């Protein structure tokens, strides 16, 4: 009996791909999703209490066709993305250096950690009123709350990452003759990258949640507001469209981060 060789196409193992596409798992997944949609439609048709109040997939679909042609709908995407990215990027700019410094200097950690620990358990949305009072424009206050959502996660993940670096790596770098900044650049930074990306993935999730809620509470634009407005206006199918759009937007953002993380930390085995 000879061994079959894997067949590759553009770096993808075709046999593996074929096996995973035609597997039972895929088939069951498709069945489950289709069954859920049918059940949802039926619940809406027969006006089952509670679940039946969710607009039926058929009505969602027909109003989706309308929405997709409406520039206002796409405007919402742009606005929300704008807010998410602004808050998220500021959180990176402040959070990453802070986390690194706190991880490397014991004294600075002792100095700032308790304050951080006191502020962290306060849910980000509880900051909305304070932010509105403080910042001159509503836009800035919203970005501030978004920033908060990602900030704490970033700092704590990086701090944990630095603290958990195996001391052997540092020692072997020292014995190979590097010191100071070299160790920081070649050991500490790469060793922290995995936890940095974990923090980014989690932070991105929180950011979207915060933006959506903040838009509902204190804004007149964006995907979150679209959802809230449709509720107020009684245009119920659009609520579901808004939710799905938010889900897709959030998923895309996390996917980009994951992709970036896999690229920048190739030594981690991709599972």
């Amino acid at each position: 009996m000879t061994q079959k060789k894997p067949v590759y196409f553009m770096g993808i193992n075709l046999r593996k791909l074929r096996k995973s596409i035609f597997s039972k798992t895929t088939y069951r997944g498709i069945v489950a999703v289709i069954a859920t949609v049918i059940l949802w439609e039926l619940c809406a048709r027969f006006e089952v209490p509670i679940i039946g109040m969710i607009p039926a997939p058929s009505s969602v679909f027909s109003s989706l066709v309308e929405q997709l042609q409406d520039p206002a709908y796409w405007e919402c995407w742009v606005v929300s993305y704008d807010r998410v990215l602004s808050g998220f990027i500021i959180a990176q700019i402040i959070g990453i250096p802070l986390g690194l410094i706190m991880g490397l200097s014991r004294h600075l950690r002792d100095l700032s950690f308790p304050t951080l620990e006191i502020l962290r358990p306060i849910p980000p949305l509880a900051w909305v009123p304070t932010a509105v009072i403080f910042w001159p424009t509503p836009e800035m206050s919203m970005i501030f709350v978004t920033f908060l959502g990602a900030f704490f996660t970033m700092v704590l993940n990086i701090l944990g990452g630095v603290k958990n670096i195996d001391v052997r790596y540092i020692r072997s770098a020292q014995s190979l003759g590097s010191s100071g900044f070299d160790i920081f650049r070649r050991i500490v930074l790469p060793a922290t990258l995995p936890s940095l990306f974990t923090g980014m993935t989690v932070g991105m999730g929180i950011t979207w949640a915060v933006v959506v809620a903040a838009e509902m509470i204190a804004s007149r634009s964006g995907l979150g507001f679209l959802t809230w407005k449709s509720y107020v206006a009684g245009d119920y199918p659009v609520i579901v469209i808004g939710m799905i759009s938010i889900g897709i937007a959030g998923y895309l953002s996390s996917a980009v981060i994951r992709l970036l993380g896999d690229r920048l930390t190739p030594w981690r085995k991709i599972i």
Partner: protein
Amino acid sequence: MTTSTSTICPTGTSEMHLSPQPVGKLSIRNATKIYDPDGVNVLALDNCSMEVEAGEFCVIVGPSGCGKTTLLNAIAGFHDITSGDIFLDDELLCSGTKQAEPGADRIVVFQHGALFPWYTVLENVTFGPLVQGKMSASAAKKEAEEILAQMGLKGISHSYPSEISSGMRRRVEIARAMMNNPKVLLMDEPYRAMDALTKTIMHKNLLDVYDQSRKTIFFITHDLEEAIFLGTRVYVMTTRPGTIKKVIDVDLPRPRDYKILSSDRYLELKQEVIESVHEEAKKAFEAGEREMA
């Protein structure tokens, strides 16, 4: 530390499950195993045949990735074989069409150890009889304490595995196996990660258990000295696809101790094993074999 390693050798008569007539004869006939993950066929075992007598201390040696674990897992019932048959005491255990059920007659001592970390030593040792409903809790406890004492593991029964040393953990695992009076003890490189000194203690302990119980032991290793020191017969496997290349009878007297390590016969046997394994190891190395788990 409550137990010192000097007390592990139980002297005098033992009550450790002496079977009137040795059981645990393993016949492996033309066992073939093909792994097929990702649509890539890996032929791990190719028409591997061997006969292990009841009460034999059978040691399998072979280069990394040659299919030793694969064979053991098939006997234990963790996966099937593609063709061939394996018999235990002339009863069909598994074949190309039938996978063996894991059971308390063939207990595995795992490479990295598998004591349940969430149970104390005592709870681990009594696990088998209790889940099988073979003993009452108090009877199981009594017997477990006895076995632990015989193996020099007094005083740790209420510790968690994370609180004792790795050598002790391995012995507890053997005690857990012996509680079930298995026909065969399947051991997959159990002492691999240990330092040489701890290993000598583990060997002595295992030989004591073997001498008293005369269980069939199916022992995988790639430490050749260990193989000869422990085994009744040493089975050398070829590189993947694995088959038995050579069977070497180790005619050293039992009970064995470290004196035989300097005997001429031991050195001869060692030379013989090294010669036959080395060539295979080289082939495996050049093929870049990796071990799975």
